[in-house]
């Protein structure tokens, strides 16, 4: 310590070592936990692949892929429908809060949208099943009567309104706050000089937004939508409580035959499952995990790349 060569080295105290060690341990624990999640799911789903399909009662007389395929289709289909509804509305809300609403109101309006994110999913499910489904059912009948030549509305319309479209609407309401929050932040980061330059050239507000805000925020919108997609893919209760699923693979939005989703199928079947049935459900869970992992990783990569070259932050 007294030697002049050591003076440049920082002093290491016991407290320092304990503190930084525990911080490091906690950080590594997260990596470990994620590895454990993946590991245990793989471990528990192995029997589903090795056991002959006719010994697993939940599969009926299909093999594992025939069982999982409609679920994967339903998961992705419902999530995409939800995004198609949610993205334009969220961009509108984000624009409203960032560029249209009176400055003083904007923050409280943001809180109101955040309130939507705070509502538990089971409450959304209760609301979707009891309030929304009966409400939209007459509308589905009208859609069928007017547009049944479009395959999406081929019908015949469900009598309860518990179709994949209703579930997608509930999902859309649930992912709205996520997409809105991120897009709002990105829109607010648009350089003021760009906006003012556009306005000074005589652009209307919409032209200003189209020329400055959207090009600047495009990557942000994409990654926000991907995060919303990740959320919609994994959402369980809202779908389980709203959708009356039959396990068909169909693009028909309003009929009573609907594909189920992986998460909803697990929630509905798991309490009664036993033996290798549990392993099958865990194997489908692993597939869901893989899908959301890819979607979220892509979203993060897009976000990080944007950060790197835009100079924001």
């Amino acid at each position, binding site marked *: 310590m007294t030697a002049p060569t050591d003076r440049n080295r920082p002093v290491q105290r016991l407290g320092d070592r304990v503190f*930084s060690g525990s911080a490091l341990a906690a950080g590594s624990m997260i990596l470990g936990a994620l590895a454990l999640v993946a590991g245990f799911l793989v471990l528990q789903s192995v029997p589903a692949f090795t056991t002959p399909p006719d010994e697993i009662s939940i599969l009926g007389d299909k093999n594992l892929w025939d069982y999982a395929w409609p679920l994967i289709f339903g998961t992705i289909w419902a999530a995409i429908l939800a995004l198609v509804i949610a993205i334009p*509305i969220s961009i509108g809300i984000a624009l409203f809060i960032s560029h249209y609403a009176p400055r003083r109101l904007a923050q409280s309006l943001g809180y109101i949208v955040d309130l939507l994110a705070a509502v538990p999913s089971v409450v959304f499910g209760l609301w979707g099943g009891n309030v929304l489904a009966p409400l939209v059912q007459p509308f589905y009948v009208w859609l069928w009567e007017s547009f049944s030549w479009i395959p999406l509305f081929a019908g015949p319309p469900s009598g309860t309104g518990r179709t994949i479209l209703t579930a997608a609407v509930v999902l859309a309401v649930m992912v709205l706050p996520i997409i809105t929050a991120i897009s709002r932040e990105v829109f607010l980061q648009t350089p003021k000089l760009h906006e003012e330059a556009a306005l000074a050239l005589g652009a*209307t507000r919409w032209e200003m937004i189209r020329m400055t805000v959207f090009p600047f925020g495009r990557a942000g919108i994409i990654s926000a939508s991907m995060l919303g997609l990740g*959320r919609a893919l994994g959402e*369980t209760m809202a779908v389980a409580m709203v959708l009356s699923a039959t396990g068909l693979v169909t693009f028909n939005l309003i009929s009573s035959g609907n594909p189920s989703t992986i998460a909803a199928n697990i929630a509905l079947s798991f309490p009664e499952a036993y033996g290798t049935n549990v392993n099958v459900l865990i194997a489908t869970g692993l597939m869901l995990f893989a899908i959301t992992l890819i979607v979220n990783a892509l979203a993060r990569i897009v976000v990080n790349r944007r950060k790197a070259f835009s100079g924001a932050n």
Partner: protein
Amino acid sequence: MTATTGAKPLVNAYASGRLAKPVPWALLGATLLVSAVSFVFIWMAEPETEYNIAAAVFLGVVGYAAAIYVVSRLVEGPRPAMNRLITTLVVLTFVIALLPLISLMFTVIVNGLPRFDATFFTWSMRNVVGEGGGAIHAIIGTLLMTGTAALISIPVGLLTSIYLVEYGRGPLARAITFFVDVMTGIPSIVAGLFAYALFTLIFGPGVRLGIAGAIALAVLMVPVVVRSSEEMLRLVPNELREASYALGVPKWLTVLKIVLPTSMAGITTGVMLAVARVIGETAPLLVAAGFTTNVNWNLFDGRMQSLPVFVYSSYVSQGTNAAASLDRAWAGALTLIVIVMLLNLIGRLVARVFAPKVGR
């Protein structure tokens, strides 16, 4: 961003060729009125159907969008007309987003209040068939499991964020940041399956424990805590740290005595919001902790009910008296919303009241 001046000359070069301020409002009123009146006629033609307010308002608004575009295009030209149309649509999206929120709050309060009584908060569902019964077992379970999850994830999350902000450099820190982000997107039911798989390995198949539910919630809660605390720690000005080092304070004491107290309000808010997020999780608890009708105080022994699962099971298996079961579900939903809103409110209040004073 319309700049208006107080004085108005008789002929204003800037105002000519522009719609006057009250014109859009007048148009909106007119289209709504026309739509309402036309729906009155439809209603009179078929008096047995209900008067369709929603359709009337919807048609009125769509009519307004079309009318403002046409009028503005005639008076102001195509570009301002487009601008007005987009403004209308943007405002409309916000109103559309408010509709489900209002409808949801309204139905939960109206349907939840009838059973939001003393029985609901003092009875369990043990031996209750049909009417009556309560959710005390679910409330106890929720508090125990969420509390345990918080006990696990707050230290882990906080230490991780300290590592990322104060110590972490290089590939490990980058990996942790990336995987925390990825972990934020883990579907809640997958977390439940993980906890179930973990405890199956220890206790054999078919096991449902309160602690498994708590572990599942912790997996969901840790990344949220890390993200929010990390952001708060980064907000602490570097000058404070450097001043502390300059006085000879070691790094760990600097973190403990300078950085953490400065960011405590923000961290508390983040933790509150994280708790609010996991307290409403249904799927992982359904899978890992199961459901029961009895009060269970022991996390390590047997199934444990929770409030979200209570709502779900009352809704799915309605039993002999469907209405009573559904009433319990709504009351449970109301309780959940009240808890979540309280946590959110307290979190935001803490952030506002205890925020470090700047410019002292």
